[in-house]
């Protein structure tokens, strides 16, 4: 029998302060990079604008395209190679004119420069300012609603404490994903949002498995004198192999998608991959640890309360 963990006895919870530190440092770096870059970059889905994907007959230097576009003065445009030296994404800011007028102008400008050769417009996306704003608000609601949904489910299935610890883990995962995006210069788009929502649903899975185990163990009768801290740690260890294995297969899928799925799906696959890793980590270190700290804090307070009462 092939097995990755044989009766694991790792002391996860005991080292939780280190985990907190690592998470906080990573998120601080990520948030710092977001601040330094003037916020997370929004794709045209959210910011509005025009995106044109073109393919040339042969590889073309970016500077030539930039020079050709500067002549028509459409404002600050972003030019990116897109998976192939012949293929580019041109992102143009919102302008008064319509998408096809912009496309035509771009096509003419690029056509005029004979050295660029023939080109094919493969994709045009135009998002007006109204739609972009609507999507931003809807996206926020979507994230909040799915968190609320999960909070309610975990609270009903287990308890409110577990629900809040799960939400904390989810927020942690989302922040890690956003940090990773900022550090790798990726932009927030609709597919990325889809990936984030999926991670929100997925990352809580392992947490539920671990909580469920705590309850099951209690049902069997815990060893006398076992602290809550140690109960959680035991449950995490007992479910460790399935936590890691399930994450591993999903990781295989998302990594394959990242490598083979093509440029259009790359950001979505990236966020899913990061999310699977951090989702597994947060089950062990964030959700489990927070619930322990919370319980310890509540116990400490009630003890203090009793002492005060005794004195009085």
């Amino acid at each position: 029998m092939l097995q990755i963990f044989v009766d694991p006895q790792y002391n996860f919870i005991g080292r939780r302060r280190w985990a907190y530190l690592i998470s906080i440092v990573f998120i601080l770096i990520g948030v710092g990079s977001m601040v330094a870059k003037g916020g997370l970059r929004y794709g045209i889905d959210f910011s509005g604008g025009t995106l044109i994907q073109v393919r040339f007959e042969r590889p073309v230097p970016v500077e030539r395209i930039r020079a050709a576009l500067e002549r028509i003065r459409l404002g600050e445009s972003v030019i990116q190679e897109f998976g192939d030296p012949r293929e580019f994404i041109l992102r143009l800011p919102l302008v008064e004119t319509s998408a096809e007028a912009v496309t035509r102008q771009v096509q003419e400008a690029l056509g005029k420069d004979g050295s660029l050769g023939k080109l094919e417009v493969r994709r045009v996306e135009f998002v007006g300012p109204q739609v972009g704003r609507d999507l931003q608000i809807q996206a926020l609601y979507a994230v909040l609603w799915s968190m609320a949904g999960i909070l309610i489910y975990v609270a009903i299935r287990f308890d409110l404490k577990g629900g809040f610890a799960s939400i904390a883990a989810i927020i942690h995962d989302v922040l890690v994903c956003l940090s990773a995006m900022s550090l790798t210069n990726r932009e927030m788009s609709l597919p990325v949002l889809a990936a984030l929502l999926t991670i929100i649903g997925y990352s809580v899975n392992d947490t539920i498995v671990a909580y469920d185990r705590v309850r099951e163990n209690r049902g069997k009768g815990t060893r006398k004198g076992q602290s809550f801290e140690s109960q959680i740690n035991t449950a995490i260890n007992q479910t460790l192999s399935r936590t890691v294995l399930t994450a591993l297969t999903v990781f295989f899928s998302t990594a394959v998608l990242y490598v083979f799925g093509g440029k259009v799906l790359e950001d979505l696959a990236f966020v899913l991959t990061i999310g699977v890793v951090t989702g597994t980590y947060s089950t062990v270190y964030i959700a489990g640890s927070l619930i322990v700290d919370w319980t310890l804090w509540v116990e400490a307070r009630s003890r203090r309360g009793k002492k005060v009462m005794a004195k009085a």
Partner: protein
Amino acid sequence: MRRNLPLRIAIVAVVVIASLVYLYPPPGVRDFLYGPVTGAPTSNPWIPRTLNLGLDLQGGIHLVLGVDLDKALEAQVERATGTVRAALEKKGVAVGRIQRRGSTELVVELASPQSFTAAQEALTELGSFESKEADQAAGRVVLALRPKEAATLRELAVRQGLETIRNRVDQFGVAEPSIQQQGDNRILIQLPGVQDPERAKALIGKTALLEFKLVDDRMDPERALKEGPPEGTEILYQRRVDKETRQESRVPYLVQTKTHLTGADLSTARVSIDQTTSEPYVSVELNTAGAKAFAELTAANVGRRLAIILDGNVHSAPVIRERIPSGQAQITGGFTSEDATDLAIVLRAGALPAPVQVLEERTVGPSLGADSIRQGMIAILASTALVSLFMLVYYRLSGLIANVALGLNLLILLAVMAGFHATLTLPGIAGIALTVGMAVDTNILIFERIREEFRSGKTVRVAIGAGFSRAFKTVIDTHVTVLVSGLILFQFGTGPVKGFAVSLMIGILASLFTAVFFTRLIFDLIYMGSRKVETISI
């Protein structure tokens, strides 16, 4: 637990056969399941033809248009001017000016303040307006469109816009277009496989309000431009393009504001070719009422010029030579034959009740779509291969069973998508690739539990039974959370992203059947037989 084996085998068999039939229907069944016409055949032989591909995979245009509802109300309120005037005059109230204010109000000025009471009485009888302000001394009443009426008109405008666009698209000839209302004032249009997006958009987005107005010759247009047009007239332009230099010039016309006929008075419009210049033009035929009005108009204005105006642009302004009783008119103006065809289409389909604005547009060329399909297929295959290999190495025979279950899962996923006419998009393909990784998770949860039970000293059969039943609760938990975020994503997402939610949710639900029900059946068949089993390949 070898209960109901024949029934369980039968259920699995039915599901497999049904899935295959839905995905690859035999010719006769196909029409029964999907109706006589189904999507354009895909160029990729690997994709079953019963799957409905999204625009990002087969190429096409996705448009979201916003209907300018204020403009629609303005037009309606403007039109009500006549009704209000008639209602007042019927009661013998002389009316001065009636002017629209904002998009929902009319300012009525009476000829004399004495008739104020009579006027107020007459105005209360108007169903769709209510009196908002009244100034007896000045003889002025401000009417406002009732909020309920305004809401109805807004709704009507969107519905009418939807209908008109549907007519135009039908006449343009697009296979399987989708035109739907989205939110309060938006229209979502999806045109798969359209080759010329610019033309399609011009055709859909044109308001196509055709108006016939008399040219006012009392003043030179140039002077009117400087001094402002006299009351009851306005300045409109004709756009002329020089054929040689391709320079565009704008010629001003002074026309009367009163509209004598509109596109609503047309019975049909078609393209004709001028015999002498061989230039295409659009000939229109008026309906009975329109023809009568046109005959009267031409009879009364022989020698004057009649401006034919489309969306506020003068197309031509021919001189009326004689009374025209036939109700035939021609719209000329240097058309290409494509322009003329499209104009005839929009005139036949009718005008949009209000201008529309492109809020969102996504156009994907067919070559990009084909690339996306290829890359997506590779991703799904590679993901399946890697995950299957892992399961096989880690769980051996049980891994093989899980892999068969995974294959069944993909089959059911695609069949359900075909059966419900769900659209497969590129993010949807990503959802399938992700489903591969998540579907085996259910098997992993079960297998790990069986291993654990087995290690704790239980016999094979007891371990299997306990493994399945104990893991089941966990399986439900994990499904619920993914479904919660999937549903919210579906609710929120547009187009392609919705496809991601759809394939993920179907895949996750299918895994309940394949990873639990089907896998259990196979385990029962192998291990729960009469012979004694001591070991389990897991």
